[in-house]
């Protein structure tokens, strides 16, 4: 049976797609998490800066018609509270510099708000700057007081680096978790397929019942096709069994009639050369009948081994039965059969096939050993195998040909004059191999043929 060629795997494809989507989401999560967190740190820094600027603004008063600014200590010290930062500030009234750092950058416009933020460079440092402003009415009319507060970004850069590290771990963690889940999902999804495979492969050779166990809806078409295929198969199997029986019947019955007719004729014919011709005819008919029988035997064996059953069978019973069945033939040929059974081993297989194999070996032995010979059949066993040995006192196998004897239609060089098709040992070999065993042909010390059949134990 050939293995179907496979292309891709559903599980792998599913896993790949899930992992792909997990990694996309992981990266997305990393980016989103990081940008949100960065925005939040930026906002919290902006809030501190704005609070600082507004606290200065809140401490400004109009006194004697002039704007009077009293810098609160906390305005600058709060900027340094979390991490050491350099801080800068500028106080401007109507665009005129009052105190602080005169060249500190200022936002271009406030866009309608009273606070504005900007990032800039100052004294070679990256800074974040907040400006807040408020109008006061003084002696010279209304005046805008603008406070700018800036700080370096040491702490923010540190927390952003920390956030980056955390985001990386969030992304990786998400991916790892998803990968684990993907693995689980892929396995769960594929499980009904595995179950179906197992239930089909567990079946016996003749079990062609439709699959009835519930399957997921996606697999229903597959299973119903499978069921239809099995129904067709069962049908065709039944047909070929019928055909074999029919063929055996149709070939054997006419041959038997012809033989009977030939024998009747032989009794009536007087002339010596005619008698010889008819005997020759009977012999040919015997050969054809036997050949047909063995061909059908072989067809039967081939068919049965293709769907070998694994029933538990007692080898001893099979051996005994076969020997007993052939005993009349032995007596007819003056052949003594000695049976010794020293094992009650059981094997798994098809009893009919094993019987057919044994029958072929014994039949060969009776045929080739000749009159007044002895055939010994022994059944022995060890831990792993059951061995059947059939030896005779005939001429044995021709030296160097034991391997070739098993070939289909091969006959020993010393088999002239004996009716045979050359299929007997082929049948034996096929049966034994189908049962996982082996056949060995040897000659006994006294020169007789010896066949060892060994079967693995059940």
């Amino acid at each position, binding site marked *: 049976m050939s293995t179907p060629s496979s292309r891709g795997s559903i599980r792998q494809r599913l896993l790949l797609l899930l992992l792909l989507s997990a990694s996309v989401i992981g990266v997305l999560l990393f980016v989103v998490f990081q940008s949100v967190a960065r925005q939040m740190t930026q906002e919290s820094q902006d809030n501190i800066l704005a609070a600082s600027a507004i606290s200065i603004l809140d401490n400004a008063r109009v006194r004697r018609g002039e704007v*009077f*600014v*009293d*810098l*609160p*200590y*906390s*305005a*600058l*010290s709060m*900027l*340094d509270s979390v991490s*050491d*930062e*350099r*801080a*800068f*500030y500028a*106080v401007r009234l109507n665009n005129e510099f*009052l*105190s*602080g*750092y005169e060249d500190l950058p200022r936002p271009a416009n406030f866009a309608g708000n009273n606070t504005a933020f900007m990032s800039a460079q100052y*004294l*070679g*440092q990256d800074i974040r700057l907040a400006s807040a402003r408020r109008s006061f009415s003084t002696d010279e009319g209304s005046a805008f007081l603008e406070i700018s507060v800036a*700080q370096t970004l*040491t702490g923010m850069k540190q927390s952003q680096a920390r956030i980056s590290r955390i985001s990386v771990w969030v992304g990786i963690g998400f991916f790892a978790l998803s990968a684990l889940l993907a693995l689980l999902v892929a396995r769960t999804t594929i499980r009904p397929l595995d179950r179906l495979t197992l239930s089909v492969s567990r079946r016996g050779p003749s079990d062609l019942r439709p699959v009835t166990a519930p399957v997921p809806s996606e697999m229903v078409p597959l299973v119903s096709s499978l069921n239809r295929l099995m129904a067709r198969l069962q049908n065709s199997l039944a047909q070929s069994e019928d055909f074999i029986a029919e063929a055996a019947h149709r070939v054997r019955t006419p041959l038997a009639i012809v033989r009977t007719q030939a024998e009747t004729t032989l009794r009536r014919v007087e002339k010596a050369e005619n008698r010889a011709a008819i005997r020759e005819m009977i012999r040919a008919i015997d050969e054809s009948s036997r050949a047909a029988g063995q061909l059908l035997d072989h067809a039967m064996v081939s068919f049965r081994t293709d769907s070998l059953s694994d029933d538990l069978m007692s080898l001893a019973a099979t051996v005994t039965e076969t020997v007993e069945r052939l005993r009349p033939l032995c007596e007819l040929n003056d052949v003594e059969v000695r049976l010794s059974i020293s094992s009650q081993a059981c094997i798994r297989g098809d009893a009919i096939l094993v019987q057919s194999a044994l029958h072929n070996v014994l039949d060969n032995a009776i045929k080739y050993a000749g009159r007044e010979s002895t055939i010994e059949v022994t059944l022995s066993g060890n831990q792993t195998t059951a061995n059947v040995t059939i030896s005779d006192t005939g001429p044995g196998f021709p030296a160097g040909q034991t391997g070739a004897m098993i070939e289909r239609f091969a006959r020993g060089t010393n088999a002239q004059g004996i009716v045979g098709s050359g299929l007997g040992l082929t049948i034996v070999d096929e049966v034994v191999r189908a049962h996982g065993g082996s056949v060995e042909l040897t000659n006994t010390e006294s020169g007789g043929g010896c066949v060892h059949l060994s079967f693995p134990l059940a």
Partner: protein
Amino acid sequence: MRALILSLSLIILGAPCQGFEVEDHKRFGAADAVRVLRVISTADISFFEPIIHSYLAGNPDVAVDYTVASSSELMRALYDEKLPFDLAISSAMDLQIKLANDGNARRHRSNRTQNLPDWAVWNDLVFAFTQEPAGFVISNAAIAGLPVPQTRQELIRTIRQSPEIFQGKIGTYDVRLSGAGYLFATQDARASDTYWRLTEVMGAMDTQLYCCTSQMIEDVASGELAIAYNVLTSYAEQSPHRDKFTIILPSDFSIVMLRTMLIPAASQNPELAGDFLDFVLEQTFPKGTSPLLQSSALGQVDEHALHRIQLGPGLLVFLDQLKKRNFIAEWENAILQD
């Protein structure tokens, strides 16, 4: 390199070209030293001499060029003229922070600096190596028999109860002239409202104003003053007339000034400066065994009463022109009650 340093030092020390005012100058170490560490400091030579000697003992190839200047002159040398000093040592914490904040200091990071307590380092730029509390210095003769005031409240009460002892005999810094005095006053005012009440009480007693710590301590020792308020006790402890007065660290709170070091951005020997800085910190922390830190007074009050002036941009607030003008105006209102 040496020629350059030599010529630079000649330029700086040569009187006509000199932009800032030098109070004192001394060179330590071998004349042919390979490396010269140029220190500008507000502390007297005698103050730093022992530590320089012990440093040079371990580093024979180094010479130390030590220049003494007032804190404002130090500021001028480094902030305005950007002169290539390697180490600036000053008791004016606000000016040191200003120098560092405005980019005139170099970062320094070493095993030593990483183990400093938080209050002793700012931004890897400014490093504190002494803790010098301000306290009352009270003449033993003048207030014999009176209970010794332990807090500002008690001081106010004592002054009010015995105006005859204290009239014209209270001394404190003139915050317009003394940087340290201004720093103590602002921190005092920030910590408690009692400061302004006390200042008004002192103003009513016709308080004497001083520019410098040592003069004030001498006047207490001589009996000219009954009490000096907000005096750097580290100086008082070293006075030869130590037995003439009592040093009190107020137990409500004591402002502690930190003497700090920084490596100016213009330094030409930043590694050497960093090494010397680490050496000084080694002497100071963790046990405070620095010869500059022999303040027995620190043990008088418990840790919670010590208000160390916090290094950080908060110090810039009182340097603000408007803020300073307002503060001094208010102070003048309180102390000069003409």
